[in-house]
């Protein structure tokens, strides 16, 4: 079984990364290889890292409220740089208002995890979805 590689990204002016670090740690313990971008990345930077690191999963942690402009831009740049967002599992975590969740899903996000989501649920979702995408892209 190939390792699952995950990029955990923080975008823009959002300065809170305790959640991202804790998630990174739990995903590590689930046996994943987790790359953390650090704070204040631009959509272009994250998209490039998605390509170069050849990750299976992009996890965007966002608490600043800027998810609607920023998340689609990351996916657009991923495509622009020659990647295929359909090949990767995209998950967003953080304080996302309920009414924004369909909007994010419409632009290619596979799941949105709001505060209080059990970590086991996140890990289960990632494992399942990665297996699906790997099957589809054989």
């Amino acid at each position, binding site marked *: 079984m*190939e*390792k699952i*590689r995950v990029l955990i990204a923080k975008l823009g002016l959002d300065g809170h990364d305790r959640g991202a670090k804790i998630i*990174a*740690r739990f*995903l*590590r*313990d*689930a*046996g*994943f*290889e*987790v*790359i*953390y*971008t*650090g704070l*204040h*990345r*631009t959509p*272009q*930077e994250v998209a*490039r*890292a998605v*390509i*170069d*690191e*050849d990750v299976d999963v992009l996890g965007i942690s966002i608490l600043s409220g800027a998810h609607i402009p920023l998340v689609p831009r990351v996916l657009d740049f991923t495509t622009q*740089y*020659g*990647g295929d967002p359909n090949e990767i599992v995209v998950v967003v975590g953080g304080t996302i208002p309920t009414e924004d969740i369909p909007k994010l899903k419409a632009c290619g996000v596979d799941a949105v995890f709001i505060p209080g989501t059990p970590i086991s649920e996140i890990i289960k979702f990632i494992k399942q979805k990665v297996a699906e995408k790997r099957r589809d892209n054989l």
Partner: protein
Amino acid sequence: MNVQDFVEGIKRGDRRILAKAISFAENGHPIAKEILRQIYDKTGKAQVVGITGFPGTGKSTLVSKLVEEFRKRGKSVGVVAVDPSSPFTGGALLGDRLRLNGADVDKNLWTDERVFFRSMGSRGRLGGIAKKTGDVVKLLDAAGYDMILVETVGAGQGEIGILEVADTAIVVLMPEMGDDIQVNKAGILEIGDIFVINKSDLEGAENLERWLSFTLSLDSSDSAEKGSANAERWRKRVIKTVATRGEGIKELADAITEHFEFLKRSGTLEIKRAERTKMMALEIAMEEIRAEITKRCSNLLLDSKDPYTIAERILKDIIKI
């Protein structure tokens, strides 16, 4: 995609194809061996620089500054940054990339077309690098990167795996890491071509520099007796840096370039690389042998309690040595 698509993609510098090929190499996928075989004649141009040293000494920050400096000098740069995988879960937190400077500097290294950064888990291998780090270096080399920086797992005293891949080995130290006995222990300090005392604005930098220089002077007088009179020898350098402020980075980049010139001029490069090719070939063969033996011995008869007798029987009966 077939082997040919990969080979052509790598040669024309397609990042996505390169990234996928690296994953195949990391996972030991059979297609990787064929890709590597076919791109091999494109390798050998890059200078491979290994950066090793104790955890927390600033290796990743130094790498970022070096990438920036070599980009200023017109070189394209590939980076392979290795971090430890958990021996218990196989998971890893790969935290070297986050030191790479982004939008807040003149040159955004994250989006620079001529920088390729790849994080790797050590995946069970000891010695500071992963089993497949050498293959990843070859892929970057074939893709045309001028400089390839390999950052090891934060290493202590005996992790010298970097010698398997690097032309130039840099050992990073910092003040207050121990006394002169630490500096004189065998292992990691024997492998450096260039020594960096990072965080040299901290107290104790001068002491460390003095001890290090003294120790290195003992090494060179010893090899002077053994070496032939004509052979040009590399004078090991000690360079003080404060990576966060960019101090000493130019001097370090100069020393790296000088070392490569020396390797080429003295013929050492050819010898070193031939030796590495041999080691790599042995490694590849051993891997197959190990897999074969494991397969043949899957129903191993435990006819004796001690492992020595069983091993002897494996060699005699099963492999016929």
